[in-house]
């Protein structure tokens, strides 16, 4: 147990690629927490997908022992938070487990949207913030300008910002000294009843569920029986320790300390991020405030391409859900796609990560249907129901009105692209809340319907700004609007997996775009195929895919008979990647591509 006055807990806030992981590595290396022969780049990013995408999904943590220049020994706990908006709730919980933040800004790039979103979370959590200007080794580094920008845009003092190169090691000692001297020590009462915050939890194949905790009051040791206050479950602690960054057992964890416990917990589902852990007997009366379970905001259907793999998919989804409490699922049947699952995610990135893992780790090819947000349907009888799947939209005669989730989106963009960005937001039913300038960059804040963003907004934003815009959002609440269900009919058969909720004023436009897209995506058949979009019984857009006119092998000699037979087999295999709707084969990628808008 370390003296409170000699503990510093902190996180690092940064936009993606500004150097958070590299800086963490340097801090670890400088303090020789890890022998240099064990150093591998980006110690804290462990999952393959994280490494590949260069993002952090789960919070990671490391305890660093540091002998400061004043000769005292300090224990520094770094929590590396997920950087992406999808995991904003995890971020906010991790932030509450520490007292300060390093605000890392790439001095060649300046402040970006994710910097802002995360730094506001840090400010919300009452953090002391130490600005760090990174990548000063690069010729394009402009420390003064960026420091000014931090003061202008974020409104914190950056006059003592530390100039660092996480690459060369310049400024690392200064950073460690600032952590010790500028960040406050945690507070807590070792004699009070145990109160620990559940910061994160995950499944380890060897040890079962591992729980990351921050002790607020009291102490925790091996063998203690502890209670999880949100659901009242009681567990005995089997193992207790800290991360350096590999696990190291300790006898006891006291106030201000961050570490892990294992307690024969079977499922990650049984542990809730933000929950309070206390002793079974004579425990704390009140839980830490601010606990709320994370809510999925985006839903989509996942179906196996090969319907024989349904059971494999169930297995994969159950296993993944055990390790990810924010991922929800329920069985879904689609007339066209057969058996699958309707799954809920924290956002699009979360969706992609889970889908990638199913495809890669479990070798199941998937059809992903259009992502949808959660609508609130208010019935005439006054009741409210959630709509996760447009296909389940109830009969309109019973519906009073609909509400959809809205977000507050922050976008930073170089001046010259501002016009395109404003047009994009306007087209997506956005309401401008703010527009300010910081140097040659503009920052705009929009109130937008989540359903307009969930699908391809980010792709569009990147393309209209040639990749120069940064974007972040948070869900703000629900608002009513004139929303309708648009269905799509291919060869006069409704295709449930393509139906979607749209704003009435935008329905014709969306319908037309969708029919045009489908006309390109569906291969020609031996007969002509009408493609229609409809609201209720009323057709609002129509295209006709003409019949196939040319599909024959020109030259075919005797020797080609074998080859032609093989070709035919290959084509038959290709057909497996399509789904049949009545007489029409629709390629699996059409379900997503059809929804992408060009503007």
């Amino acid at each position, binding site marked *: 147990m370390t003296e409170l006055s000699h503990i510093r807990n902190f996180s690092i806030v940064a936009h993606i690629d500004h150097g958070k992981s590299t800086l963490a590595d340097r801090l670890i290396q400088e303090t020789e927490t890890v022998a240099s022969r064990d150093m591998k780049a980006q110690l804290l990013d462990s999952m393959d997908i994280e490494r590949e995408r260069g993002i952090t999904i789960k919070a990671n943590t490391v305890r660093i022992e540091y002998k400061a220049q004043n000769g005292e020994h300090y224990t520094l706990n770094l929590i590396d938070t997920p950087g992406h908006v999808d995991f904003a709730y995890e971020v906010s919980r991790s932030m509450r487990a520490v007292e300060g933040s390093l605000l890392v800004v790439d001095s060649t790039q300046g402040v970006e949207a994710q910097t802002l979103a995360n730094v506001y979370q840090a400010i919300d959590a009452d953090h002391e913030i130490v600005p760090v200007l990174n990548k000063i080794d690069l010729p394009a580094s402009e420390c003064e300008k960026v420091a000014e920008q931090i003061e202008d845009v974020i409104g914190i003092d950056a006059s003592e910002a530390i100039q660092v190169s996480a690459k060369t090691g310049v400024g690392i000692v200064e950073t460690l000294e600032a952590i010790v001297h500028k960040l406050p020590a945690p507070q807590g009462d070792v004699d009070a009843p145990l109160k620990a915050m559940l910061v994160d939890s995950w499944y380890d194949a060897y040890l079962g569920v591992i729980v990351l905790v921050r002790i607020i009051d009291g102490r925790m040791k091996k063998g203690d029986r502890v209670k999880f206050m949100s659901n009242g479950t009681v567990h005995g602690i089997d193992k207790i320790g800290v991360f350096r960054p590999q696990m190291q057992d300790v006898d006891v964890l006291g106030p201000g300390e961050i570490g892990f416990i294992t307690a024969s917990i079977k499922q990650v589902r049984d542990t809730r991020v933000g929950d309070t852990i206390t002793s079974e007997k004579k425990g704390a009366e009140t839980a830490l405030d601010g606990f709320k379970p994370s809510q999925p905001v985006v839903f989509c259907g996942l179906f196996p391409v090969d319907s024989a793999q349904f059971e494999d998919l169930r297995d994969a989804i159950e296993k993944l859900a055990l390790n990810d409490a924010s991922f929800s699922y329920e069985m879904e049947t689609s007339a066209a796609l057969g058996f699958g699952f309707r799954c809920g995610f924290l956002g699009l990135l979360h969706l992609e990560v889970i889908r990638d893992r199913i495809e890669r780790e479990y070798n199941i090819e998937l059809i992903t249907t259009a992502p949808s947000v959660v609508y609130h349907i208010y019935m005439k009888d006054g009741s409210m129901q959630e709509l996760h799947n447009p296909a389940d939209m109830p009969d309109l005669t019973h519906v009073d009105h609909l509400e959809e989730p809205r977000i507050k989106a922050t976008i930073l963009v170089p001046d010259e692209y501002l016009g395109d960005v404003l047009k994009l937001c306007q087209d997506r039913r956005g309401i401008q809340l703010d527009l300010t300038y910081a140097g040659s960059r503009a920052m705009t804040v929009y109130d937008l319907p989540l359903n307009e963003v969930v699908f391809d907004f980010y792709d569009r934003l990147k393309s209209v700004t040639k990749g120069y815009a940064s974007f972040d959002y948070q869900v703000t609440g629900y608002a009513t609007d004139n929303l309708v269900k648009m269905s799509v009919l291919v060869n006069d058969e409704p295709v449930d997996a393509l139906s979607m909720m749209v704003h009435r004023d935008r329905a014709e436009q969306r319908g037309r775009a969708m029919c045009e897209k489908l006309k390109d995506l569906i291969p*020609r*058949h*031996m*007969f002509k195929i009408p493609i229609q979009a409809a609201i209720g019984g009323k057709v609002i857009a129509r295209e006709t895919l003409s019949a*196939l*006119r*040319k*599909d*024959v*092998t*020109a*030259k*075919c*000699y*005797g*020797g*080609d*008979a*074998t080859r*032609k*037979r093989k070709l*035919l087999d290959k*084509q*038959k295999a290709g*057909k497996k990647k399509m789904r049949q709707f009545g007489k029409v084969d629709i390629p699996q990628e059409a379900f997503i591509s059809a929804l992408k808008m060009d503007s």
Partner: protein
Amino acid sequence: MPLPNLSQAALPDLADPSTLGLYVHWPFCQAKCPYCDFNSHVMANVDQKRWALALSHEIKRVGALTQDRTLTSIFFGGGTPSLMDPETVEAVLVAAHETWRWANSIEITLEANPTSIEANRFRGYRTAGVNRVSMGFQAMNDDDLKRLGRLHSAQEAMAALEVARSTFNRVSFDLIYARQDQTLPAWRDELTRALETGVDHLSLYQLTIEDGTAFGDRLAKGGLKGLPDEDRAADMWDLTQELTEARGMPGYEISNHARPDAESRHNLLYWQGGDYAGVGPGAHGRLTRDGMRVATECVKQPGLWLAAAEQAESATTQLTALSAKEVFEERLMMGLRLRDGVDLGSSALENTSLCNNIKLLVDFGLVALTGTQLRATDQGRPVLNSVLRQLLAD
């Protein structure tokens, strides 16, 4: 649902089983054309005596498997068989003559590239026994010939055609259409000129971009612009049918047009499911033996083939017995290429999924069934691959 036991006997024999065709592959060319995925190679010095001997050995070997047959056709294909010395052609024909009884009306075709070098040999080929040539014109204007990587000019081709027609009774030539930037009027003009030559047989192929060719690579890299889209290719197909029919040369097969009785008998053998032996690198054959249909395939690489063929214990040829299902699929795939279609036999029509598929296609107007004779209609033939997929679907 798998096809029920379509035993060999259930399929009517379209071709007389006592007859046989012979395909001889000559794998060398002067230059490799950018669209071509045939087994053809550029070689400076070919030891023609060695090749003549090796081909003759192979003919004797395959002869042992096909005794008591009457040879009705021989086809020298390539590559560029018109690079064979007349003596080489003669040696091969002598071997074939020693091996099989020849039909009086035997058709002996040789594929020729229409350059002046080849034209000079035509007399020698005729003396050796060749009685039909098929010439690779490909295009009838110099710009397009260049883009197709051809070594001859349009004028040379016309001169070679004259020599060929004064030497052989039966002459055909090949054109490749639906080329880059080719317009409908340009094709109308070119095809009209081709028909005006008065030949009684034409092969008119739409350009196919094959993987592994120079064109294939260019297309994959986003090059090879100006190829027709499906609609323009279909318009060109329609125009081709219209013009050839008007001239009395309707398509008797997807890409082959002839006056009545001028059809290539050797190629008909392929499409009608007859027996043929294949000799030379990469050559395929189909032989019926003891009620089984056997696919034969020779070693593809010319060097390996030659070495193997020269050994007494030949390992040039792989024999594979085809399953009843495979035989049936081939019959359909090949037979439906013919305007007259294919006789399915009555037991095939007891298969319900086949019948349902046929019914669907009849409804679409893509095939017609008369008794047990199934044929693709004028609408069905340009989309034959889709028709076949549907017919053979479970």
